[in-house]
């Protein structure tokens, strides 16, 4: 690998290292210059990357299958053996941790993401197209984040002083029940929200801020018949975005944070969204929405990300 370093020529090994994200910045630029001039090499890089995406499509489903009891028990014991000083209440949120694990292991940065098992029973929408749609959704979320965090004056349409009002209004706009999760335990408070057009119809953007006035946004959209559960991560400049589908809704959490920091918040969002909206007194007009027919309601029960299958055990 080193022989060519001086001359700037790109080696075969470096092409692989480029695809695998194992090149440092300078050499990456050299490879990119080469790829721009050599279509055959560019095709190879693209094919290698596509192979990786296919591997993820084939095997990422394992991440959502709960391990056998024995494996789980051994994991716990291993943790006990290795982390002596770790006296936090262990494994109290297993499905959540598995969510975190899955998020960390899916292919990062690509438009690909992860098509989980049971992706689409209707078979009508090509998977590639769905994936594209969700990637677009994440992009919109990222752009919306940039845009509405750039100027504090216009950051929200409706403040969070009355959360029921905010949630009710956005639910009405979207034709679905949406709510802004409580992220207080990760240090962020809801400041408000706005309704936005997206590729998937009306979307809702919730904005949160922490004490340092750092802002994150949660973008909610309604994917076409999407009952697949994708966990994907994309980094656009300084904005990191996690996105996934839970039930009838797609979520994209965006912030100028590291992947790890954002993951902590994504976990909180995931947990809250799964638990459902806070039960206050239900607003009277919140009957199941009649205004809009909802063609995509045929989500088979039981298609869930990660897995709650261990819930019984944990109680």
């Amino acid at each position: 690998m080193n022989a060519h370093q001086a001359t700037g020529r790109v080696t075969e090994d470096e092409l692989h290292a480029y695809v695998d994200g194992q090149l440092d910045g300078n050499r990456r630029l050299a490879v990119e210059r080469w790829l721009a001039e050599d279509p055959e090499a560019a095709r190879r890089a693209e094919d290698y990357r596509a192979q990786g995406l296919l591997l993820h499509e084939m095997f990422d489903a394992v991440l959502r299958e709960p391990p056998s009891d024995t494996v789980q028990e051994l994991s716990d014991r291993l943790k006990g053996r290795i982390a002596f000083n770790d006296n936090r209440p262990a494994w109290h949120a297993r499905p959540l941790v598995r969510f975190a694990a899955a998020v960390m292991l899916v292919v990062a940065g690509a438009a690909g993401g992860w098509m989980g098992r049971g992706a689409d029973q209707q078979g009508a929408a090509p998977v590639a197209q769905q994936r594209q749609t969700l990637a677009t959704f994440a992009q919109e979320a990222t752009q919306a984040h940039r845009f509405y965090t750039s100027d504090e004056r216009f950051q929200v349409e409706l403040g969070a002083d009355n959360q029921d009002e905010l949630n009710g209004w956005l639910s009405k706009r979207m034709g679905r029940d949406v709510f802004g999760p409580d992220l207080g335990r990760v240090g962020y408070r809801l400041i408000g929200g706005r309704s936005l057009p997206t590729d998937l119809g009306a979307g809702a953007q919730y904005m949160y801020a922490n004490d340092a006035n750092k802002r994150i946004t949660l973008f909610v959209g309604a994917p076409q018949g999407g009952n697949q559960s994708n966990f994907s991560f994309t980094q656009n400049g300084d904005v990191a975005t996690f996105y996934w589908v839970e039930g009838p809704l797609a979520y994209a959490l965006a912030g100028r944070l590291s992947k790890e920091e954002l993951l902590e918040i994504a976990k909180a969002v995931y947990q809250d969204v799964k638990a459902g909206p806070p039960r206050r007194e239900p607003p009277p007009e919140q009957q199941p929405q009649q205004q809009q027919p909802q063609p995509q309601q045929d989500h088979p029960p039981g298609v869930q990300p990660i897995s709650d299958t261990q819930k019984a055990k944990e109680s």
Partner: protein
Amino acid sequence: MSKFGVDLEVHIASLRRYARALLRNGADAEDLVQEALTRAVARADSFQAGTNLRAWLFTILHNVHVNQVRSKAARPQEVDVADVESKLVSPARQEERVELREMMRAVDELPEEQRKVLLLVALEGLKYDEVADMLGVPIGTVMSRLSRAREAVRAKLANEGGVTLRRVK
């Protein structure tokens, strides 16, 4: 949940995925992971805090696998392809998953040493030097196996419908 707890869970999920990709059979894969974790627990004292936990776990899994293969050498390791596919690919989606079936087949046809390197790098995201340490081969060997694996798969997919692969961007 502590950072360490999450890290460990991430590594174990990664081990399970790798084992499944390598063995293709859910039960065998879980057995392999189980055996590897049993050894890891037994040898936990030899793990040095602050060193690479993921590499340590993968190395143990690799050694267990090598031993298993050795002791099962008399028994054929083949698995029916149709059986595997039905487990891995939801049946309703098969017609649009042609490229997945082709990929599966192409990976199956790789020599095991190449298949391992491809899966460790392209699926599990291990660093080249981690793979070299784990397999006990020089890094150059890792690179040449990786290169041959990728080219073989590429040739295979190009033969059987190169256009479909283009779509997966």
